[in-house]
């Protein structure tokens, strides 16, 4: 067995253990209290999972991207909020790790992420851009003594109050067009977060994502030199959609497992008879299979394209459409699976305190189509389909 496969298996075993023994028992309290899943994230830190996917040269665990996606799935099965925090952190650090050319500050920064197990949050949406991450209002602004400053009004910052550092999209300078963007990394101590709004949502309650006004003073080298468009198309967009869809699949899989447990319990009560819910479970299985295969093939396409030296395919419209479709399909299908699971379990699935409860699963997955709104992605695809040839 190769070293890398060994590493992947060990990582997945440790994440599964954390999911079962730490995330699962706390998931109801996290959900009810809309509180940060501190126990899960601390346990993941303890296993150095926050840097598991970073290269070993930077002090990371060197596990494969597939294993990180698997980790999101495993956590998703036990606590959607823990999985989302883990996934969003991984999206940021794995994206940075793929664009380190000419960015020594960022290499050193990622080594610190590994060493100190720093948690990175994302500040990509902004009030006034209508949810379009391809435009920014806040700009990197020259400050005193060669520093840079920025002030960004963010309508949501997931786990903003719990993160060590912030990954922020900004305009290149105060004179730049809205679409001329860069990525900056502000560390704790450099940024001030002024809370703006409350957090009492339907689902994904443990992500603790109220709005903030963020003011920061950073050094110029904390602005990533890599072209923003390449960072987005080659890494951030596909990695986001793949890791999100894996955790949604995890949540949907647990909803299915609960429905199956319910049907098995009914079957045991009347041996020799197939319970009527068994047929509904079969329908549910086929719904879940479609989700599983879309998520799996999206991952495969990304891994294959990333192995090419110049990652060319990832910059094509075909690729953009491919990963947009993964996002749309997975985010539509996951809540559908959870709702069907509730249909199988009936009232015991609807109640919040039974072994077959799937309310949290349904509520958590209902956030999926809103995180980068599906309608916006459809609009992008609609435009790309006018010009792309072989899709």
């Amino acid at each position: 067995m190769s070293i890398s496969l060994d590493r992947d298996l060990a990582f997945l075993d440790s994440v599964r253990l954390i999911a079962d023994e730490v995330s699962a028992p706390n998931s109801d309290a996290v959900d009810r209290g809309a509180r940060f899943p501190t126990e899960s994230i601390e346990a993941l830190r303890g296993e150095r999972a926050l840097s598991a996917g970073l290269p070993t040269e930077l002090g990371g665990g060197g596990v494969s991207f597939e294993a990180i996606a698997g980790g999101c799935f495993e956590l998703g099965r036990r606590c959607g909020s823990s999985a989302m925090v883990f996934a969003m952190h991984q999206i940021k650090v794995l994206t940075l790790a793929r664009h380190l050319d000419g960015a020594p500050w960022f290499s050193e920064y990622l080594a610190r992420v590994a060493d100190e197990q720093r948690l990175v949050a994302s500040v990509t949406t902004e009030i006034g851009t209508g949810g379009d991450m391809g435009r920014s209002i806040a700009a990197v602004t020259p400050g005193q003594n060669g520093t840079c400053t920025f002030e960004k009004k963010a309508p949501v910052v997931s786990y903003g109050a719990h993160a060590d550092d912030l990954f922020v999209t900004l305009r290149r300078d105060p004179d730049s067009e809205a679409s001329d963007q860069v990525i900056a990394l502000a560390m704790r101590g450099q940024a001030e977060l002024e809370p703006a709004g409350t957090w009492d949502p339907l689902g994904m309650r443990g992500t603790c994502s109220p709005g903030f006004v963020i003011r920061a003073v950073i050094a110029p080298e904390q602005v990533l030199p890599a072209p923003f468009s390449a960072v987005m198309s080659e890494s951030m967009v596909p990695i986001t959609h793949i890791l999100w869809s894996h955790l949604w699949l995890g949540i949907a899989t647990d909803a299915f497992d609960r429905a199956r447990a319910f049907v098995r319990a009914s079957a045991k009560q009347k041996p020799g008879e197939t319970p009527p819910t068994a047929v509904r479970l079969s329908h549910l299985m086929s719904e879940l299979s479609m989700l599983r295969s879309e998520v799996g093939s999206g991952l495969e396409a990304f891994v294959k394209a990333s192995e090419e030296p110049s990652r060319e395919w990832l910059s094509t419209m075909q690729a953009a459409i491919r990963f947009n479709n993964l996002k749309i399909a997975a985010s539509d299908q996951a809540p559908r699976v959870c709702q069907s699971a509730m249909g199988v379990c009936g009232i015991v699935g609807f109640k919040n305190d039974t072994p077959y409860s799937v309310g949290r699963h349904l509520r958590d997955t209902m956030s999926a189509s809103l995180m980068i709104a599906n309608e916006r992605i459809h609009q992008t695809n609609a435009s790309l389909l006018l010009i792309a040839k072989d899709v």
Partner: protein
Amino acid sequence: MTDEIRQIIRDHARLAGDVDSLADDADLYQAGMTSHASVNVMLALEDHFDLEFPDRMLTRSVFESIDSIERALVELRSETAVQ
């Protein structure tokens, strides 16, 4: 050809500034062309020059400047001529 491309940029790229003062190698995206506007530029180029960009050319780098668009058009025309 450069003038024709420039006219299409003027009509479809929806740039904030003056297209005439834009250098041939200036970055159109930095000048404010959105992804959506770039699709309209591509469609207009296909229509005007009566050709189709293959998928491999539908990347940001091909449409990032008047120069790069011209290179792509020249390449496409020479390919068509060979066939």
